[in-house]
């Protein structure tokens, strides 16, 4: 049974998001001897972001494994390990480097259970930092969730807070199916939260209302959550009451939390980093179209990355949804 962490009455520690991820991995490595971590620089170096810091020291080179520089290799061998009793947590150093492994994920990770009618399965977690805004070099800032939400057979989660990060990580590892675990790089060390010390899970497939409101529903995830929350408070101050939904799971998406909120507010703005065309925002538009058509007081707005490659960092602030763009869309749906 999944326990929502809010129900826990337990000791907590103040952690950043990346520390919470580290704790989540420590927890599962302790709980389940079949788990192992593999990836580039995850061992001795503790990960380029220190996500796996201290884990090789604690669990040994056999559980926390530095691999060759080879993403298809990491995922392909994880498939073999997973069908044969292990639970790999594979790190892809940046989401923009997941593409060499796309074939393995698309043709094997996501399909093995179906093609063998359940005889084989690959319970594995693929971790990948994603998103722009940290002045990183080229290709380091992509948001590639749509390439995986469109891929039947894999779940996609994306925590926005330290508490969700730990709980979703443990849930992902416990899940019988492969899970892509997207880590909003920009939020890694941006803020702290009190995180339960003990093990807990956050249910995959459930979004969370971060702020209640009456006039407009703002739907987002990842590093956009704190930005959208801030804009929502500013809008409130200007008399537009905004509800903020953090999707947390991108596949399977929590349709109910969306439709309930939009049926209440009658207006929605979706905010995400990836380019609008082909972005997950369109799926949310469809969900609203399918479930809440008659409730809509205005066409749904999307505020997304532009339909351009994530630019070099001198321009990235113009690529990303800005508070101004978000607010403009809030006004637009309100004044329609």
């Amino acid at each position: 049974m999944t326990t929502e962490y809010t129900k826990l009455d337990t000791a907590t520690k103040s952690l950043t998001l990346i520390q919470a991820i580290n704790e989540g991995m420590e927890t599962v490595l302790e709980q389940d001897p079949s788990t192992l971590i593999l990836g580039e620089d995850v061992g001795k170096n503790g990960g380029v972001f220190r996500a796996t810091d201290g884990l090789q020291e604690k669990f040994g080179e056999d559980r926390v494994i530095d691999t060759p520089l080879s993403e298809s290799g990491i995922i392909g061998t994880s498939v073999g390990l997973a069908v044969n009793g292990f639970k790999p947590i594979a790190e892809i150093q940046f989401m923009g480097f997941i593409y060499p492994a796309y074939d393995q994920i698309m043709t094997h990770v996501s399909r093995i259970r179906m093609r063998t009618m359940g005889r084989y399965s690959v319970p594995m977690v693929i971790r990948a930092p994603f998103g722009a805004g940290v002045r990183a070099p080229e290709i380091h800032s992509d948001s590639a969730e749509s390439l995986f939400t469109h891929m039947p057979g894999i779940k996609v989660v994306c925590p926005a807070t330290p508490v969700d990060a730990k709980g979703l990580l443990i849930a992902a590892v416990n899940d019988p199916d492969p899970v892509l675990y997207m880590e909003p790089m920009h939020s890694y060390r941006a803020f702290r939260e009190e995180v339960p010390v003990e093990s807990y899970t956050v249910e995959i497939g459930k979004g969370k209302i971060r702020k209640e409101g009456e006039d407009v529903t703002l739907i987002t995830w990842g590093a956009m959550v704190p930005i959208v929350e801030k804009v929502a408070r500013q809008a409130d101050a200007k008399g537009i009451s905004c509800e903020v939904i953090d999707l947390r799971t991108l596949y399977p998406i929590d349709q109910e939390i969306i439709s309930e909120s939009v049926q209440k507010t009658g207006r929605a703005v979706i905010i995400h980093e990836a380019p609008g065309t082909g972005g997950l925002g369109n799926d949310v538009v469809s969900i609203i179209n399918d479930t809440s058509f008659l409730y809509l007081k205005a066409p749904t707005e999307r505020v997304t990355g532009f339909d351009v490659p994530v630019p070099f960092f001198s321009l990235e602030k113009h690529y990303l949804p800005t508070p101004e763009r978000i607010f403009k869309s809030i006004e637009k749906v309100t004044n329609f």
Partner: protein
Amino acid sequence: MIESYPLRQIIDDEGNLIDSNNRDLINRELVQKAYFNMYRIRTFDKKAKSLQRQGRIGTYPPFEGQEAAQVGSALALGENDWIFPTYRDHGAMLTYGADMTRTFLYWNGRMEGCVPPEGKHIFPAAVPIATQLLHAVGASWAEKRKGTNAIAIAYFGDGATSEGDFHEGLNFASVFQTPTIFFNQNNGYAISVPFERQTNSKTIAQKGVAYDIPSVRVDGNDFFAVYFEMQKAVKRARTGGGPSLIEAVTWRTGAHTTADDPTKYRPEGLGEDVVDPLVRLERFMKNAEYWDEAFITTTHVEVEEEVEAAVKAMEDYPAPRVEDLFDYVFAELPEQLKKQKASYLQLLGGQ
């Protein structure tokens, strides 16, 4: 380089032992196992081609000509090993214990064809070229971690050596010293592309040098050569010696698949000098006095019956369930998929 990788042979094209010292390696049991399995999969293959022509199964990639390589390798494996085949390795799969009815079902577009018998580690055939090499590395790595002495074998073709996953697979196996056998069937062609245009090296075996993986080149139409070289590699893997690469030089007698026309690209007469591996084995059996008419007759009857029964079972198999389209994507159906399934079943029901 080619001199460093001489073609290892035990019997010649006439079915004579090349080195009489090897006589003791061979016994009746082995010879009969070889014959039985090669004849069995040959019969399966012929049947499959004929079923395809009659439209009773879908497109089919025949393995005729590669029986010695497939049987020789599969028979060298043990109970608890893992095999990671391609679409052309149903001969090896059947030899290792795959179900024949299900093998026909596979080529009839049924996912039941991917489900191995309980307890047998037979991965479904890889269609995306070379991807399975990494799976074999992972599965055998898992055995090493568990401290068993089980191993994994990856089957792949000459064309597969051009894909990145071939390289990444061999590199991982070597770095982590996994008990993996990379078993290449160099059958001369990747669809229409001859080996000489696939790569510029004269052998596939020499590609092992890049990873310091012990490699050999073996006559893939010589059952015994394949079997004995496999045994060495299996032993090395079981005893902590790490991965091996075996290039079994063979020949694709027929078309790439039943949808392919080799006269478009294969020079006339090419390959005509290749002695069929089954014929070669028969010659050896006759030369070395292993020929036993009674055994041969029984084998033929038994195999014919098995194949016919499997075809019948395939055709009598319950029709595919529409539910299967949805039920195995995840361990548990997500809400959306549940709705899609329900509404489609309702629509079907209402017709």
